């Protein structure tokens, strides 16, 4: 064997180039690019909410009931201008939205992520093992999907009680089945390909074949489901909070902010509900634009 110095790994460069190519393909759609930019901006705003927000909406000592229900642009007693107005407790709505966004995105992303892991493991196992285990898992999926998500979440939260963690459990419980079904569908196709047979012929372990061979080739459709389900999780959480079973009052999410303003709606204080609603809408549209583009990119029928 000659020296192996000349085969130094061009690893990082190759990976970066692939990523850049993917980014360029993604950006070919201006709507998707705009969606991605808005989404990144919203995530940054949510992450850095404590630095950006003029007021800490959780600090009740800072609130003054005299500032309650100020319309957008009013100047408060403290001299501060509330650009989006204040809510029924005198909270600055802009700050409340930033913090609410933080909670909504966190709950949505975390529950989508955990559901992704659970659903992927179960779906891959079902496809790879087959037989009775496949049937058992997929009947569970059918059972879960035959009930409306909101119903299951409501029942779970009625049992568990309110709270961010409990809301996430409920969201995970209603979401994992979508991942399981998606992964199983693509894994059933990939399993029949000869490289899986080759891996079995090389007597690699089942876990290795699942994780190293099957999973990487089933990832693409999952990415699309993740974006769609994340949007779904955020709406569902907002709905649950709106109904008063989701997150606690002390940590208002976007849904809870909308619910809080609801009672003042007919009194003319429209802004308390509308602006959190608009924020939620922007999040949804941004995520869905990205998801649509990803779906197009990963659809083999539309390739080339």
């Amino acid at each position, binding site marked *: *064997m000659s020296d*192996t110095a*000349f085969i130094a790994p061009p690893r990082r460069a190759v990976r970066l180039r692939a990523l850049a190519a993917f980014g360029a393909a993604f950006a070919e759609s201006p709507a998707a690019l705009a969606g991605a930019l808005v989404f990144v901006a919203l995530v940054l705003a949510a992450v850095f909410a404590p630095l950006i927000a003029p007021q800490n909406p959780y600090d009740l000592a800072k609130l003054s009931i005299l500032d309650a229900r100020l319309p957008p642009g009013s100047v408060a007693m403290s001299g501060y201008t509330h650009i989006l107005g204040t809510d029924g407790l005198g909270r600055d709505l802009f700050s409340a939205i930033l913090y609410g966004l933080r909670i909504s995105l966190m709950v949505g992303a975390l529950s989508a992520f955990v559901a992704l892991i659970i659903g992927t493991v179960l779906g891959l196992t079902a496809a790879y093992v087959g037989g009775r285990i496949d049937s058992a898992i997929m009947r569970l999926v059918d059972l879960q999907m035959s009930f409306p998500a909101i119903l299951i979440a409501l029942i779970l939260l009625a049992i568990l009680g309110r709270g961010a963690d409990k809301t996430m459990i409920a969201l995970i419980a209603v979401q994992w089945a979508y991942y399981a079904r998606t992964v199983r569908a693509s894994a059933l196709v990939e399993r029949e390909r000869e490289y899986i047979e080759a891996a079995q012929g090389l007597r690699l372990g089942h876990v290795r074949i699942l994780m190293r061979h099957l999973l990487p080739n089933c990832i693409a459709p999952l990415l699309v489901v993740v974006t769609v389900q994340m949007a779904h999780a955020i709406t569902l959480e907002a709905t649950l909070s709106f109904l008063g079973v989701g997150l606690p009052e002390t940590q208002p999410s976007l849904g809870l902010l909308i619910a809080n303003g609801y009672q003042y709606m007919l009194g003319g204080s429209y802004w308390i509900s509308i602006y959190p609603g608009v924020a939620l809408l922007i999040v949804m549209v941004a995520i869905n634009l990205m998801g649509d583009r990803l779906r197009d990119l990963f659809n083999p029928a539309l390739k080339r």
Partner: protein
Amino acid sequence: MLDRAPSHTLEAADTAFVRLNDVSKRFVGRISSVERALARLGFDYRDQVVRAVTDVSLAIEKGKVLGLVGESGCGKSTLGRIAAGLLTPSAGSVSMGGERIDRMGTRCDTRTLLKAQMVFQDPMASLNPRQKVVDIITEAPLAHGLIRGADRLAFAAERLEEVGLAADALYRLPHQFSGGQRQRIGIARALSVSPDFLVCDEPVAALDVSIQAQIINLLMSLQERRQLTILFISHDLGVVKHLCDRIAVMYLGEIVEQADAAALFASPSHPYTQALLNEMPSVKAGRRLYQPVEGEIPSPLDPPPGCHFHPRCRAAMARCSSEAPPFFALPDGRRARCWLAEPAPSPGA
């Protein structure tokens, strides 16, 4: 390959390295419980049984190449997968060097199982599209502790060199190669665990004719250098003629004729083999004498009674449609499953 010494009948081949004994494989499409209930009520529902391989016995001597030919759908790929230990036979046994390799999973020694490897037909589908060549080649030897992590690059480069690829292929992905190069990578992967027995399932069928010759030559030189025992599956008699010491012809799950390569091409005894040979495009004749085997291959779900080939056979007799012929031993270690090959005085064998 140069060594074409007359081999004995397969039953007597005690020196056989790889041995398939009465191997059968059935695939059962089970009916659902609803259909089962209906069947009990008298409706016509039953499990669908495909007899892909029926009572096949083969023996390959160490360092020899056995060609397995037949039309598509005759069960040759299934047989190949059984021989490579990828499928468990429904009945019968497969052994290699005296040890059984026919059961997947833990009951066989992994080191033994690794000695039988497979080269697949479609070089794109048989390589993991998300694995780099270096990982494709080194994953199994690393996982089984055959090489050390530090030797990984050198090992992979060596395997690539062995199959005629440059070491700069190491960090590329399968889709960046041509079909022939991918097949070389597939061969390198099979060689990575130093097998003694290689099952090649139509390894050149998906390639250009010019590339086919290169891959065949590569397999021949590897076979010689590594003293590989090879089961070479193909529907192309021309390829098989070039490569194999002995040839088995398969039809609808059964071996219908076995003979040394030269003998088979010189004088085929089974009508199906004759038909296949006529089908071979010939350059020497000046024009293509192309006579395809008439008719379709019957469904293995419902094979014809008697000799499976009789509906398409030009020499079919009355007996062929009722009685299935056994193997008749012919001179020079040839065997044919045809009444025409029956020794004159006494019927049966």
